[in-house]
């Protein structure tokens, strides 16, 4: 293996200078940073597998109930969905810039990058809330309030847009689509909320002058988390919103 040599190349433990934020079971800051980063990546692997279950379910049912999935997907607002995608991609960019500012000890740059990321993140959630509200109004939330009426008898606007009425049993399958829609975007939004909470804390600390002494592991590893949440959305968007918009 490439790391068959040990990272700890000093035989003496704890007898040399080390910064106050170095933990005592580590031999060097380099070891600590790489270790923490590796730990973060392993955590992201668990997240990949966590969402993996939902993607599996989605792909199976999309194959089984394609017409229902198409019709249901068309009720999602593509403008809001695309806007959210752009918002998240931009927030990934601003977060990457934030990491760069921390690496190069640019205090103001870091603060502004984090503020931008935070605002974009909140913007994403705001747009999502609006979308969820629309789903609520249309009775598309699975459970006791769900109604597939709009798919069996599409209204004028939908018919003009090219929607065809679904047979009642296929129309009922739109509830499966919406179950997955809410499970997947809901789980994603939950991760966004957690991220925003952590980001706020980090922003506060950065504003007070933190992360300028080279100890930027938190910023870097939070960046990894944030980019991962962005990647989940990069897959959610085409799968949920863009099922053959040409029909």
């Amino acid at each position, binding site marked *: 293996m*490439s*790391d068959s*040599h040990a990272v700890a*190349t*000093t035989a003496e433990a704890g007898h*040399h200078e*080390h*910064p106050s934020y*170095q933990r005592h079971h580590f031999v*060097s*800051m*380099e070891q600590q*940073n*790489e270790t923490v*980063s*590796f730990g973060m*990546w*392993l955590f*992201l*692997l668990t997240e*990949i*597998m966590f969402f*993996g*279950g939902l*993607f*599996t379910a989605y*792909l*199976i049912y999309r*194959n*089984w109930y394609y017409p229902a999935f198409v019709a249901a997907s068309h009720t999602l607002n*593509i403008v809001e969905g695309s806007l959210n*995608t*752009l918002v998240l*991609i*931009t927030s*990934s*960019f601003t977060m*990457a*810039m934030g990491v*760069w500012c921390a*690496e*190069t000890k640019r205090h103001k740059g870091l603060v502004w990058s984090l503020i931008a990321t935070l605002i974009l993140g909140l913007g994403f959630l705001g747009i999502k809330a609006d979308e969820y509200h629309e789903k609520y109004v249309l009775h598309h939330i699975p459970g006791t309030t769900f109604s597939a009426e709009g798919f069996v008898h599409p209204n004028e606007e939908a018919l003009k847009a090219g929607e065809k009425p679904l047979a009642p049993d296929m129309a009922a399958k739109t509830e499966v689509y919406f179950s997955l829609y809410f499970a997947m975007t809901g789980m994603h939004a939950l991760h966004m909320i957690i991220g925003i909470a952590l980001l706020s804390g980090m922003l506060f600390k950065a504003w007070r002058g933190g992360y300028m002494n*080279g*100890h930027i592991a938190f910023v870097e590893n939070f*960046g*990894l988390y944030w*980019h*991962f949440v*962005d*990647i989940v959305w*990069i*897959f959610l*968007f*085409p*799968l949920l919103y*863009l*099922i*053959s*918009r*040409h029909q």
Partner: protein
Amino acid sequence: MPEHYEDHDVNAGHPESEQHIVSPMVYFIIFLALLVGTGLTIGASYLEMGPWNPVVAIFIACVKATLVVLFFMHIKYSSKLMKLTVGAGVFTFLILVGMSLADYFTRAWGQW
């Protein structure tokens, strides 16, 4: 980077470690590429491509995700171990999705 705290060669065996600072220009180019990709995928969904629609959509999404992982998440500049780790995650994900779907697709093939 706290190089002055080390009393051994920091780069011993880790030539591509976190020392590499990615420039904002790289980030900006990747950002633009992601925007272009988003536009492409939206546009492609309005084209009639039959069974290729989902393939194109997933392909574009994979390219975008790869760009984020390589550049925004620094994997391109990280050690082999990190690359292997990401690969292992993706591989296991593909096993879950692939082998489950294989069951569903082959049910339609009948009883032999």
